[in-house]
């Protein structure tokens, strides 16, 4: 039993570098799967920002009796927060993809390479 285990261990050691390599090549697929997950966040993140901001404004108005000052202010802030959420998610996605493109693992086609000189 012990010999058999050692045998399997030795064989695994031999195989695992190849396996790791194969996993690395599979990276774009894994990223695609994660991208679906992240893309699904965009919509709800935007709406949740507006909703939370508006609710906070509504409650503050009720507390301090300042209607509709806080309501309007926090509606705007909430919208900004929602946009910030979306912006962050989108930037994360783009950075991930750009890393892969630079490593030559993902081909987006010529048009999608970042060539607009925005010095990001």
């Amino acid at each position, binding site marked *: 039993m012990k010999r058999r*285990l050692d045998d*399997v261990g030795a064989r695994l050691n031999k195989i695992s570098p190849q396996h790791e390599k194969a996993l690395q090549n599979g990276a774009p697929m*894994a990223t695609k799967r*994660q991208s*679906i*997950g*992240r893309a*699904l*966040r965009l919509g*709800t*993140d935007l*709406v*949740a*920002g507006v*909703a*939370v*901001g508006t609710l*906070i404004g509504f409650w503050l108005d009720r507390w301090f009796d300042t209607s509709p000052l806080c309501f309007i202010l*926090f509606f705007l*802030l*909430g919208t*900004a*927060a*929602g946009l*910030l*959420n979306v912006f962050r998610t989108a930037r994360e996605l783009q950075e991930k993809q750009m890393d892969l493109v630079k490593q030559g693992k993902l081909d987006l086609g010529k048009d999608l390479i970042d060539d607009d000189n925005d010095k990001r």
Partner: protein
Amino acid sequence: MATAQGNDGAMMPNPMHQFEIQRYIPWEIGGVDVSFTNSSLFMVLAVVVTSTFLIFTMRGHQLVPGRLQSISELLYEFVRNMVRDSTGPKGEKYFPFIFSLFIFVLVINMLGMLPLGHYSFTPTSQIIVTFALAALIFVGVTLIGFWKHGIGYLKLFAPSGVPWYMLPIIIPIEIISYLTRPISLSVRLFANMMVGHTLLKVLGGFAGALGVAGIGPLLLMVPFTGLEILVAFLQAFVFAVLTSIYLNDALNMHDH
């Protein structure tokens, strides 16, 4: 409700009936309703099914896994890679929690797809269930953040490189953005599950009510059922991914 049996006539089953809570064992403690409902039943079922499956399939713990053991190991590795990718080495400690969370939501979603007629129920289609999960995660992650970084965790709300005169605007925006986490986390799961199940029920109602012409909606239901199974999986995945991303923010603050 009587409408549930109305398939043969022109009457349509109420598509919202499937979301109704039924008390199986009515129970009240100090004015708080803690009845054992169909929602509780399905959550208990999910835990029992998961535990039984994982313990049973890993019982032999063969070095070269059989078919069932492969499923367990596949699940384990799938979640483990996800946690490692999004939180790095610091997050390894929290892997058991995220694994349990993912499997729990996944199994609940999948159990909800079983056609059990009158008894079929999906706890994740109740906003309070998903919100309780999301609130637990939100409070937990915030506590971990303060525990790891002390009061410095508040720097999350004031990103570096922002000029001081912008701070009065930026800080409220960042705080609201942080507070949206439990809302978007819970609403996303709840809305996806509820909408999908309602749609299936409405199509099913048409198929029953239209007689021979009902073959149209029936055919339409086939791809939608497949889609709903995909959504059930994907939403469990998104829930777990987001939890590990929030955890990552609390553990490695510098990202912001």
